[in-house]
């Protein structure tokens, strides 16, 4: 209790000083806590692009700071506290594992706004935000189902959590729709970013006959493995990974945080910031679909773009019934779409996927 009083008073003193400073220079300070290095070419890279976009948008009116490769747990709590002490007005914490630390630090600094990516705990000064990556997975699944010749699609999972399982289901549903013979082979890497492990996983999948490799991990190692094997297609993850286009990378899911970061920074500047829960997809532009390369036949590309358009305008939902769960029980009735609560906690495969979700 004593510490929090101490911190709060320090923050207050600093807030006053910072306020005076802000008045003098009109600067809003925005902090970013990153789980990986900004050069990872995937998840953290895109968050950093968002940070740079905030700087480009507001110029002299903002100051951004960041710390990269911050371990989840007490280290992240210290880094957030340090940013708040140094006078940050808004702090983006960009990994699921920062959830409890964000809530802890936010409680000590009621005047600082926090934005936590992909979590579910909120407070008066903590918002959450995430992207509907499964919308992009539907398009990947469609292209994968059309393009595979061996009918085996490899999938590199990171961790068996709802977000990843949702992606697998979405890709599978849409691959199956265009190719009833398709089979998914799933390898769990138990990491978000580990080029060596990801490359191994990709090689194993290719050896098992997969000629499409989807990944929910952030490095370009699977792309490199596919390029080496030849005749295997992949999709960029989190970032465009265009350096591997047109083959093996035929398209990508791009996380575009820039519009959101700019809007939230603006809200803090205008004093209109409130705690919200944002889950945006292709429509609002948080999920981007990277250029579909010429390695994809024109008709498939056209279908994929049509699918993208229908998801963007809301006329189609990737989880539309009839769908059954893996165990054969009913999931969605004809025409029914999955609600956000079900999607957020998804912990089952849909019918047709073989293998168990590891526990």
């Amino acid at each position, binding site marked *: 209790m004593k*510490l929090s009083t101490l911190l709060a008073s320090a923050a207050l003193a600093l807030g006053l000083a910072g306020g005076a400073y802000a008045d003098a220079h009109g600067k809003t300070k925005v902090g970013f806590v990153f789980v990986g290095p900004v050069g990872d070419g995937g998840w953290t890279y895109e968050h950093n692009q968002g940070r740079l976009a905030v700087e480009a948008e507001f110029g002299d009116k903002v100051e951004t700071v960041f710390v990269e490769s911050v371990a989840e*747990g007490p280290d992240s709590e*210290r880094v957030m506290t340090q940013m708040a002490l140094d006078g940050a007005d808004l702090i983006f914490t960009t990994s699921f*594992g920062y959830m*409890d630390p964000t809530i*802890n630090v936010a409680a000590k600094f009621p005047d600082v706004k926090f934005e936590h990516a992909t979590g579910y705990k909120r407070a008066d000064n903590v918002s959450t935000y995430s992207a509907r990556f499964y919308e992009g997975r539907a398009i990947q699944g469609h292209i994968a189902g059309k393009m595979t010749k061996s009918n085996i699609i490899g999938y590199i999972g990171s961790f068996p*959590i709802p977000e990843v399982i949702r992606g697998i289901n979405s890709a599978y549903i849409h691959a199956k729709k265009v190719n009833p013979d398709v089979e998914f082979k799933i390898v769990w890497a138990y990491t978000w970013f580990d080029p060596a492990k990801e490359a191994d996983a990709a090689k194993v999948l290719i050896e098992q006959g997969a000629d499409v490799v989807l990944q929910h991990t952030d490095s370009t190692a699977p792309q490199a493995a596919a390029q080496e094997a030849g005749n295997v297609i992949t999709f960029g993850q989190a970032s465009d990974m265009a350096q591997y286009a047109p083959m093996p990378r035929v398209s990508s899911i791009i996380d575009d945080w820039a519009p959101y970061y700019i809007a939230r920074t603006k809200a803090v500047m205008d004093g209109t910031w409130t705690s919200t829960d944002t889950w945006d997809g292709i429509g609002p532009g948080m999920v981007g679909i990277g250029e579909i390369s010429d390695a994809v036949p024109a008709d498939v590309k056209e279908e994929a773009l049509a699918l993208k358009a229908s998801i963007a305008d809301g006329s189609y939902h990737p989880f539309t019934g009839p769908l059954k769960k893996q165990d054969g029980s009913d999931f969605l009735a004809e025409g029914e779409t999955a609600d956000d609560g079900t999607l957020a906690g998804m912990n089952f495969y849909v019918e047709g996927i073989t293998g168990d979700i*590891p526990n």
Partner: protein
Amino acid sequence: MIRLEKRPQASQAFSWAAPLLAVIATMFFGGLLFAVLGKDPITSIMTIFWEPLFGDFAFYYRPQLLIKGAPLVLIAIGLSLGFKAGIWNIGAEGQYIMGAIFGAATGLAFYPTESFLIFPLMVLSGALGGLLWAMIPAILKVKFGTNEILVSLMLVYVAEQFLASMALGLLKNPEGFGFPGSRNLQQYASAHNAELIAGSGMHWGVVAALIAVIFAYVLLARHQLGFAIRVTGEAPRAAKFSGVNPTRLVLFCMGMSGLLAGLAGMFEVAGPAGQITIDFNVGYGFTAIIVAFLGRLHPIGILLAGCLMALTYIGGDIAQSQLGLPAAAIQVFQGMLLFYLLAFDLFTNYRLRVGRTEVA
């Protein structure tokens, strides 16, 4: 011409001067590195070493030093006993994980019962978890002569998989909407390793680390077993003649280092970290190896080295956010510390001679 000449006897003075020289050299060349990156070297070094101790917010960073340093010291003390005797437990990271899992599982088993007995039970089972995990390479070594370096290291990866499985399965928070990670022990009073004095950073793990330092000091200086450890490392043949039982020594050193690593993991999960998550371990078990050597395998040295390491972590993070230094530069800076230590260590056993080689 310059050449190296073996000293007739290892220089005691140099053995203690090497860490200091290494720190100075690291500051100098680290400063150069930061200058090349376009940052003011003096400000950078000051931010890393001065800011956490005496800066504006030192009231917050000083306690953080204890939180960051305690597990490093606790683990390094255990490792140093084995290292002194030539027994190489490289798998403290795995024992740290197992201690955390055992400790957290014990606490969570009682949830939501409140009792003052729960925390002591968690401490015991945390120690047991680390001990058991370290006993695997120890017993394999004693019975079958396997290499403890390889076995203990491999068991780190087994422990990591086990950790992931626990976070996703058995210990998963039932109220966590299917997301991985256990309940937060910080919100469970009986199991929370809270600060003993709020705002001081002093939790039971810090106390345990200090006790371990004293215990190791007494053991090495005064106890028969400490003598056995030292003599085995320095002169294995002499140890045999003086009746040291190598089997018991391996079991003791591996067991003790596992136990202390397990304790460190338990205090961490019940306190600063709060929950079992997939990425719970952040490399304390490996960093502690550096700490042990930086501290000359001496209890007091390890205490100082642990604080220094913690300082570079905390100062490094401050430098990243205030000065925009990349994380990789900070890691290079930390790497330099070990590099220069090893370089200067050479002069403990050798000296530089300038001049011609005399023909005998």
